[in-house]
């Protein structure tokens, strides 16, 4: 064998260098074309879009029934994987009319031009008592708040305020189902899926004055 012949490990290293191949130029065009064809054939069980908001980029997902999940910026990584695991592997970044409506209404909400959301929701990611709690929560009017205990009571179990807290902490549809309107009994702001700071901002937005809510 010629001593200048490339050896096996050198060839393997060059083959493995193919993993670094830059596919960015075609990636975007391809994923858009695939999403378009999938939408035309109604192949997607879940469509996902990213929406820029004053809170940062929000992740929105919708099934054929309606919006099923809203994620805060820190949830972007793994968002599609979570939906694939919980709902269906047929999930892609693609437009869907309910997502378009939700995005439009979120813009209006953040500009103080909307006090309630009118988009179809798919509640499949929550069930039982948690679903009850979120149901009650969805009826809390703009700018008003309830305590965990009050929400638990309205959901039929006055002493289950802890479970109510869990239900709100795992709300798959924050903002659209306004769990930020539920506070600790003491008037303290309490925890929030998107972080306490986000909860505070939503409450001050709804308070209209931009002022911090009492006891925050």
């Amino acid at each position: 064998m010629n001593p200048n012949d490339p050896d096996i490990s050198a060839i393997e290293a060059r083959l493995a260098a193919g993993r670094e191949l830059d596919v960015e130029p075609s990636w975007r065009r391809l994923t858009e074309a695939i999403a378009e064809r999938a939408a035309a054939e109604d192949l997607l069980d879940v469509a996902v879009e990213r929406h820029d908001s004053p809170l940062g980029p929000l992740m929105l997902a919708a099934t054929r029934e309606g919006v099923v999940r809203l994620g805060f910026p820190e949830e972007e990584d793994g968002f599609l994987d979570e939906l694939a695991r919980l709902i269906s592997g047929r999930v892609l970044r693609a437009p869907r009319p309910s997502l378009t409506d939700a995005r439009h209404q979120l813009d209006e909400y953040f500009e103080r031009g909307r006090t309630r959301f009118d988009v179809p929701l798919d509640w499949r990611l929550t069930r039982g008592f948690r679903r009850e709690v979120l149901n009650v929560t969805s009826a809390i009017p703009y700018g008003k708040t309830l305590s965990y205990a009050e929400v638990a009571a309205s959901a039929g179990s006055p002493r289950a305020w802890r479970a109510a807290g869990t239900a709100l902490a795992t709300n798959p549809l924050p903002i659209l189902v306004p769990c930020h309107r539920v506070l600790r009994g003491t008037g303290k702001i309490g925890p929030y899926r998107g972080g306490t700071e986000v909860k505070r901002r939503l409450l001050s937005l709804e308070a209209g004055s931009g002022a911090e809510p009492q006891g925050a």
Partner: protein
Amino acid sequence: MLLRFCISQAGPDRGDDVFQETMISALRAYDTLKDPGAVRAWLFSIAARKAIDSHRAAARAPVPVEDVEIGTGGDPALEVGGEIWKDVARLPEKQRQAVGLRFIADLSHQEIAAVMGTSEAAARRNVFEGVRRLREDLTDAVR
């Protein structure tokens, strides 16, 4: 990763189409996937089939291809990155797939066997033979 594999199997131009066809087929056939944990191997096996379809379609309708300048010699050190994949494209079908799955998709021999529907030993052999043949090609090119 799947897109890179498609390109490794069908070249940069047809690789894009192979990827698109793979994704659409996978979405259509998703209900037939029994084990969601095996989705990766399943996708690569669809891609491997689509790449073969693409090769056959291309063979039926030959079009003038650019001269890939193989065998012109030159300094192998200049032949960096993706150049070697032009040689991979000319490997026999099974070796081409196995080499792509091993080095682009970074699959284990066991996973390659699952994708290609062969024994693990056969998967190992396909990878090995493919790499051996590439070395011969390169050696010839250098001389």
